């Protein structure tokens, strides 16, 4: 399927960055405001899908050389890993902790282990959504 849609491509070029930024913002905002790992992941995934719609698979694969199956697997490992990790600190499975730290550039920052867990969720969502959409659309091209 060859489409030559100049307008779509031009728009996508700039919009993708906005969507990606929004996704990352939503991910971090989720702690105290609307957002979170699942939504952040979905937004990121939709950005990727948008790119696939505007360009063909090979081009996007070249700019983002990830294997999204591995991204999803890594996400699952991260989520379960945080859960198991808490056991090593002698607290029940899946306990979370949080604290305030002063970091360079960011100043006083609230860091929690939930963020790692949510990152796992986000990566899984991105990986799975993109994997499913890619496998369906690639299959169609082979036929």
């Amino acid at each position: 399927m060859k489409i030559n849609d100049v307008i779509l491509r031009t728009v996508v070029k700039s919009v993708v960055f906005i969507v990606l930024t929004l996704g990352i913002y939503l991910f971090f905002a989720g702690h105290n405001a609307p957002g979170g790992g699942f939504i952040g992941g979905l937004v990121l995934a939709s950005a990727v899908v948008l790119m696939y719609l505007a360009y063909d698979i090979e081009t996007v694969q070249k700019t983002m050389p990830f294997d999204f199956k591995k991204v999803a697997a890594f996400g699952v490992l991260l989520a379960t890993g945080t859960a198991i990790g808490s056991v090593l600190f002698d607290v029940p499975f899946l306990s979370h902790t949080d604290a305030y730290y002063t970091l360079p550039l960011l100043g006083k920052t609230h860091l929690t282990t939930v963020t790692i867990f949510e990152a796992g969720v986000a990566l899984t969502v991105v990986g799975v959504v993109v994997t499913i959409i890619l496998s369906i659309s690639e299959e169609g091209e082979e036929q």
Partner: protein
Amino acid sequence: MIIKLAVLLPFLAAALIPLVHKFIKREQIGWFVLAVPILLFVLISSYIPHTANGKTYMHTLEWIPSLSINFTTYLDGLSMIFGLLITGVGSLVILYSNFYLSAKESLHHFYCYLLLFMGAMLGVVFSDNLLVLYTFWELTSVSSFLLIAFWHHRKASRAGARKAMVITVSGGVAMLVGFLMLYAMTNTFSIRELIAQVDVIQQHELFIPALLCVLLGAFTKSAQFPFHIWLPDAMEAPTPVSAYLHSATMVKAGIYLVARMTPIFVGVPTWFWLVTSIGLLTLIWGSFNAVRQNDLKALLAYSTISQLGLIMSLLGIGSLAFAFEFSDALTPVFALAGFTALFHLVNHSTFKGALFMMVGIVDHEVGTRDLRRLGGLLPFMPLTFSIALIGAFSMAGLPPFNGFLSKEMFFTAVTHLDSFNVFSLGSAVVWIPVVAWVASVFTFVYSMILIFKTFFGNYHPERLDKEPHEAPFGMLVSPFILCALVVLIFFFPNVLGHYILQPALASVYPSFPLEDITPHISPWHGFNTELFMTLGVIAVGIILYKTKRYWSYVYTFLQPRHSFNALYEWVITTTENNSQRVTNQYMNGYLVHYFTYIYIIFVGIIGSYFVLSGAFTFDPSKDSKVETFELMLVCLVACAAVALLFAKSRLSSVLINGLIGYCVGFFFIIFRAPDLALTQLVVESVTTALFLLSFKYLPHIKPEVASMATKWRNAIISVAVGSLVTLIGLTVVNYDKFEPISTYFEDSYELAGGKNIVNAILGDFRAFDTMLEVVVLFIAGLGVYTLIKLRNRKEAADIENK
């Protein structure tokens, strides 16, 4: 804590193999893997001096404390024996398989499964929590399934793997039920605490059902009659696996469980009779059937079954020690049986491991293990012959090998039953020794078959595929180490007895003074009953072996169609056929039908529950005022929904569906649920894209041909569902049957450190759900991927059914 790491290390190593196997040469993986069990063996054996002094180690990591599931490891004498067996035999087996398996096999899978098994097995023996034990227990079944089906291009391997899985897992589920009953009685999953509450348990009405369920799990795992049928079929696995899982470790998990549970269940006749009689039945049936096998591995499989039965029956007799108060004269007599069970457990692992490795060598170097083709191999393989000789003589119970000692003690245990009359033993005093003796005769016969049919007799080069020759040095190392143990244990049995068996005895008989019940093992008792029994075994055994072709027609009475295998096949095929018939009746491929089932059940159950419990209450005064724009949105949704029915193409229906979704998203915004709105809008966009992608490959939509009656039926169902959902929505506002839980979550900042309650619930309060959802999502994604990508490999199916 160290023990906990010991359990987890094999899992960690198994997880690392797929990551690193590309960077190391294939034939070298085994050597890296070998480091794991050796390290663990050294680690565990470093505790021997401490456990020999009666010390135990316990360490708890809270896992799900609210369900009293904790990962508690417990190291005592009993788990020490098994830990040493698992890691010790494990090291030897991995060393052996480095030479046995060729580098062309998918070795990274093999060692991954093997490590998985090792970790699971260590988990079983070191867990104090019953549910954790159960998890590891089933994991051993799963890894055994993977290992039996390692050569999965062979049909027999797959069938054997499935059989083993079906039987052991169903037993495992029964065991889980038993554990849950124990929990219902005592409110704890900890074996330590259960032992402390024996009185409560034994008074409880669930006691006998729990006992039966737990025994079912142990019997299926340890291949006891009539569940033994999976073990011969499991011999399709590579020989190192048979040596490890199906003779030395996994099948002994049932023995472990019985020994571990002895302090909880003893003192009742049911336990004694079941364990003893099933054990004896397995003993004699296994040895009787071993004699007629032509395949060396099948012979060893039946021999393993019978030896497991022997250990089981000894544990049963040993449980008699609890039937009465401690006395100096009587308790040691029965405790001797328990001691012998543990002793024979170790002995069996040594000689049977060596024998399996010997058979593996024969198979590997000669190309067959069929007794009808073998014979006269002695000049070609003298070293292998010496392994066979030591192993088989030990199995037959001849000196100077360790099997002689435990067999003598077994005879002692069964002949001293008459010294105290409990549980109305009655005539059992007579027939138990007789059964034991007859089984020993058959054991002697098949041990002789193993040696003489393989290494003596006429050599038939025309029946062999390969020129026989001695095995490489590396393959001989492991069996020779085991053979050395066989001999060493005979000469120094009390070293083993003092350091390993005595502390284990303390776990089986916690309430008795240990020094008094530990017997002293001596190879020479003088001319007593046991020795005469052994001499009788040898004499009758030799006669039976010499005259085998005159009496072997008795086996023709055992028709295959009356066997338990036939019963198993019948159960499996009828279940498959019936469930397929039932499934085909309602799974007819029409989505409309599936929705009809779902909706009818929904309306039926939910609707009638609301009506019957009188939950439908309406109080319009509580409802807030409906704004005009809300009404407009409702109208839009309704119009879109109706329009959906008349859509002519898939594209337009997807778009209309998307419209409805976005409208719902707007509702979320109006009612101030920004998280929901965000999710709804993004999900709607992604699914619309997904629909568009997949619809491209579907044919054009066709107008549905349906009778008027069907249409009316569907319409009624739809309207009923719609109105029910609306009514429930209206009712929920006034529902006051339960306490609202929202107040708990309002403290999310203090409890979870986040101000967004929704995410605090998702990521912290209910994080367990989220974690499993993530896993499910991932599995679903993998499912889609494999269904689409891998379906083109169908042509490979031809070689599948060799």
